[in-house]
């Protein structure tokens, strides 16, 4: 799933981007369907992920519907809005009956994990800044030739729906 997400984020300039979404789906499928003979700790983690997926999926779809059919961001439509809130209510129902209540120790554990993520993020940002800074600018690119200028102009005009005069 992580590899698929990274491929997907590379954008259309790279061919591997088209493998991103299928890889993510494959990873998700393997995570949900195939685990067998898990140890205690792994089984606990797998159950925890499955419970969360059962909660997140209806909530996410509901939130998208609410945003799409709310008076602020989309075209107001009562049926769409009601469907969204119904799905959000279902996810809260699952949360309530799954006994996933908010506890102080659970919240503290989550905050400690986020602290670790934050520390790691800061170190990677500093490392990236230092390594990019040490590389420096080796050479300056040559200016575009007249043919290249024409090509760039044509591409920009095509994407902006303009004619050959730029209108």
């Amino acid at each position, binding site marked *: 799933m992580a590899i698929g997400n990274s491929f997907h984020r590379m954008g259309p300039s790279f061919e591997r981007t088209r493998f991103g979404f299928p890889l993510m789906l494959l990873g998700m499928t393997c995570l949900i369907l195939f685990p067998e003979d898990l140890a205690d700790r*792994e089984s606990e983690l797998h159950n*925890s992920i499955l419970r969360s997926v059962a909660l997140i999926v209806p909530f996410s779809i509901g939130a998208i519907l609410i945003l799409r059919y709310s008076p602020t*961001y989309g075209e107001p439509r009562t049926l769409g809005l009601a469907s969204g809130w119904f799905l959000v209510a279902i996810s809260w129902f699952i949360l309530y009956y799954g006994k996933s209540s*908010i506890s102080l*120790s659970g919240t*503290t554990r989550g905050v400690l*994990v986020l602290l670790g993520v934050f520390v790691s993020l800061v170190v*990677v940002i500093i490392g990236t800044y230092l390594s990019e800074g040490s590389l420096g600018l080796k050479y300056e690119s040559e200016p575009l030739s007249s043919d290249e200028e024409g090509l760039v102009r044509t591409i920009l005009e095509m994407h902006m729906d303009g004619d050959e005069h730029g209108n």
Partner: protein
Amino acid sequence: MSMGIEFSEALLLVSGGSLLFSFFALVHFASTYNQHNRSLAILSAILIGTASLYSATISTGHGPLTSLEGAMASAIMGILELLPIVLAVVTTVLFRITLLTKRSVGASS
């Protein structure tokens, strides 16, 4: 430590969070490799991952692989424990969007 969490567990959770991030960073660096990218930023992810694995090993007293598995499993479950809070916050925002805003947002709003 207060709130029923021992120091070793707290260290394991912080290490787990750090390992989780460095794992995703390493996967990202490897997956998005291209010949024009000569940045050495991947070294920082390797460095923080190694340091986190070391602290997880100290925390559990087990071998590196067992500690890696335990720390990352604890970290994922720790993040999932925050899910009810995230859902509550998002639900509040959705409630506000649905009921309290009566007009469309213009470009200058």
